[in-house]
């Protein structure tokens, strides 16, 4: 499985391509977690990001292709942010449990996708397979080496950016306080609700960007197959690393390889669900080892 997922330039770039949505969505989850909120809706945000890209692509035409790609990526980010708007508003103003609202939005958005590709956006050429028309070659994301999409560079940038945002910036510090203790936030004059709201929108945007990159570099069209559970796997990725952006980047790459490995071993008769099971089990292992880190037996010199 190792050889099949990272053994050649081709398979290595495939693995890293799969890592892109995991990393970006995972970073979004981590940013939201700095205000102690959970984003279970990354799956839906990925879909809405892709839908937003297609919507803009259909309605606007810009001849400069790199500018066009840039605008499409931004619209993906905004799409993801819009997706989390309802959970964010209801959480911040009314205290509605964001775990359930973000999760239920997934089903709404995926339902919307299925509706679009079967109805208004259905490509007559795709025959019985429900999908929208392909986007033109001019907006494909260029590749770096092998099949590796330049989305991976965006990924690296965002991972570093998220690291600074979370660990080094004033905003990140305020988010941590807002999430850590409501009272401290009030004393320090930090508007906790505002921080939570922004953190949610940015978190959703990251996942939406993942959807945009997936559309522009992999599937090239909107279909129900844009995300294969990336949003859920991203939760595992983020949780294993304890919500640390650089860790998310590394574990995301590993899990991308696992997913590709899972898809490849399917061809030799082993179920691809094994990959998911390995991923989930890894997290259980991480939780258990967390316990032993916390309760380490330390030798203490007698004072």
């Amino acid at each position: 499985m190792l050889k099949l997922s990272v053994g050649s330039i081709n398979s290595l770039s495939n693995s890293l391509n799969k890592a892109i949505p995991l990393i970006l969505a995972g970073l979004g989850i981590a940013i939201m977690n700095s205000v102690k909120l959970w984003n279970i809706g990354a799956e839906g945000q990925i879909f809405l990001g892709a839908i937003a890209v297609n919507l803009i692509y259909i309605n606007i035409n810009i001849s400069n292709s790199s500018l066009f790609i840039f605008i499409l990526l931004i619209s993906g980010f905004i799409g993801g942010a819009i997706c989390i708007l309802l959970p964010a508003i209801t959480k911040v103003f009314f205290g509605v449990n964001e775990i359930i609202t973000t999760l239920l939005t997934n089903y709404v958005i995926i339902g919307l996708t299925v509706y679009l590709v079967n109805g208004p956006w259905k490509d007559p050429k795709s025959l019985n397979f429900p999908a929208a028309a392909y986007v033109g070659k001019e907006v494909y994301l260029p590749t770096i080496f092998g099949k590796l999409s330049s989305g991976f560079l965006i990924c690296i940038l965002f991972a570093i950016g998220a690291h600074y945002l979370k660990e080094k910036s004033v905003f990140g510090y305020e988010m941590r306080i807002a999430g850590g203790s409501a009272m401290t936030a009030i004393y320090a004059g930090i508007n906790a609700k505002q921080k939570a709201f922004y953190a949610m929108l940015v978190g959703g945007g990251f996942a939406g960007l993942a959807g945009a990159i997936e559309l522009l570099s992999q599937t090239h069209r909107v279909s129900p197959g844009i995300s294969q559970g990336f949003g859920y796997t991203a939760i595992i990725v983020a949780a294993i690393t304890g919500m640390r952006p650089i860790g998310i980047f590394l574990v995301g790459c590993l899990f991308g390889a696992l997913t590709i490995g899972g898809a490849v071993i399917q061809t030799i008769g082993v179920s691809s669900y094994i990959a998911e099971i390995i991923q989930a089990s890894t997290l259980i292992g991480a939780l258990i080892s967390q316990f032993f880190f916390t309760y380490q037996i330390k030798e203490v010199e007698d004072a």
Partner: protein
Amino acid sequence: MPDIQLMGLLNATLQAATLLFIAALGELITEKSGILNLGVEGMISIGAVTGFMTAINTENLFLSIIVGVLSASLFSSIHAFVTVILKQDQTVSGLILTILGLALSSLLGKKYVGKKLMVKVESIRDIAEPSNIFEVLLSQNLIFYLAILLMITTSFVLKKTMFGRRLEAVGEDSRASDSMGLKINKTQFIATCVGGAFAGLSGVYLTLSYVPFWTDNMTSGRGWICLALVIFGGWKPYRTALGALLFGFLEALVPRLQTYGFELSPYLVKIAPYLITIIVLVILTIYKEGKTGAPGNIGRPFFRENR
């Protein structure tokens, strides 16, 4: 509207509600002890697939129900171990249960996709087109009546028995309960496994009665609606049942809208229950303004050394 159509709607409502209610009741018991288990979806899937596999292989319904319930309960003990014994994050652990449960059930059920079930949990009386409420009730199956029994028992146990009061005390204030000599870990562990067992029963109802076949991800988000139901019901069994009836009604109504003359895309119609769930949840939270009835210690691990 003809009576038969109305009764058909009622019938479908009761069936959808039963499925949601049993798992929600289990989650209610778990949450009463202060443990939040987000893995309902995974536990239902495990119960559904193991029950279905047993039914295909043995054609013994009683055994299938037992296997479904026990395996889901065993599966939920992973959550109990990680959160109660190791005191790790309940949100993460619950999510693992969902992801692992869905993947594991897909893996187990792979060979069973599309297989036809020879046995099915039969209705009390087989009535093709019930024409009055009494006949609708008679055309429900044993698990429906079991659900009613569970509702009454759970409410009684929580309110009137020593075990129920202790369970609630643990969930409300673990520290005080600990100083009173209650066994926190034991109570929470049991409550989590009971919640798993209920979810398993719900899963068995899904594959052996509601839609008698197996496909991947067939729970399609119902586990999450169950979590919303517990909030909806304010952690009270009867009110949760009321919520289940409401959501069951929505699930039953939506595909029928077209026959009543509403022009709607079937794809959009499928979104409606989820959208309505969100809206109901929002209205409910605003209406109650914080007084939701949630157990005081929910989601927070109990560290004895911090006492």
